[in-house]
């Protein structure tokens, strides 16, 4: 189908790449989204609303930055995501923010991850209230003369999740 976007113009997207969010992103009514992967995306993706050209978030795979990051879903959430608790094959996306205050700090929201069922393409934003994960987990400062992630082990790993299987290249 054709998706109009304010940032990338009109895009032709396969119907099976459309993600349904019955509850929307928290605070927003839009319920259909697509994941867009620009060339040279540096493991970040655009989470673009299908029915609102101007609405797009930047998301990334939190598990690439935070080893051991995990989300425990409730039975209701399994049901909403049409997810089989036996297989539990999910993709987690963290909403990314850029802070223009003094330096352009990049943070990701670990407290409100978006959980996607890649089989049914149903997603839900979950709020975690266990005090374990913060809403502004700092990734790095951009631009930075000396990137804060210098050590080998601190670099984001190759995305352990299969986001590429559900996104559209642009």
């Amino acid at each position, binding site marked *: 189908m054709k998706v109009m976007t304010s940032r990338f113009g009109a895009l032709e997207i396969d119907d099976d790449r459309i993600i349904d969010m019955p509850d929307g992103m928290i605070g927003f009514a839009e319920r259909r989204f697509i994941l867009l992967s620009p060339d040279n995306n540096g493991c970040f993706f655009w989470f673009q609303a299908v029915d609102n050209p101007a609405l797009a978030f930047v998301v990334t795979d939190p598990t690439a930055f935070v080893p051991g990051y995990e989300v425990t879903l409730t039975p209701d959430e399994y049901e909403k995501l049409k997810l089989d608790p036996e297989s539990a094959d999910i993709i987690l996306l963290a909403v990314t923010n850029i802070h223009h205050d003094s330096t352009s700090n990049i943070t990701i929201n670990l407290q409100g991850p978006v959980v996607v069922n890649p089989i049914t393409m149903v997603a839900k934003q979950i709020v975690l209230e266990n005090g374990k994960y913060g809403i502004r987990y700092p990734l790095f400062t951009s631009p930075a003369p000396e990137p*804060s992630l210098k050590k080998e082990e601190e670099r984001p790993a190759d995305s352990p999740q299969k986001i590429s299987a559900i996104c559209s290249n642009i």
Partner: protein
Amino acid sequence: MLVLTRKVGDELYIGDRICVKVMGISGGKVRLGIDAPTSLRIYREEVLAKVKSENRFAAEWELTDFQKMVDHLPNNSRER
């Protein structure tokens, strides 16, 4: 909105499975105990409000911000 008055130690039920108990009151704060199925997430209002406001803020990315971020990623973290 239904408004009820309860004393410390009193309980109230929401449906058959959710029980809210007033545990104590001190210094203008009310301590509540909640018994509810684990299938329900219980949040403090401000946590939900924080996620909502973080989402609003996150909806303001410009293409140039994205490019700037990717261009300045630490070495070797680019996917392709």
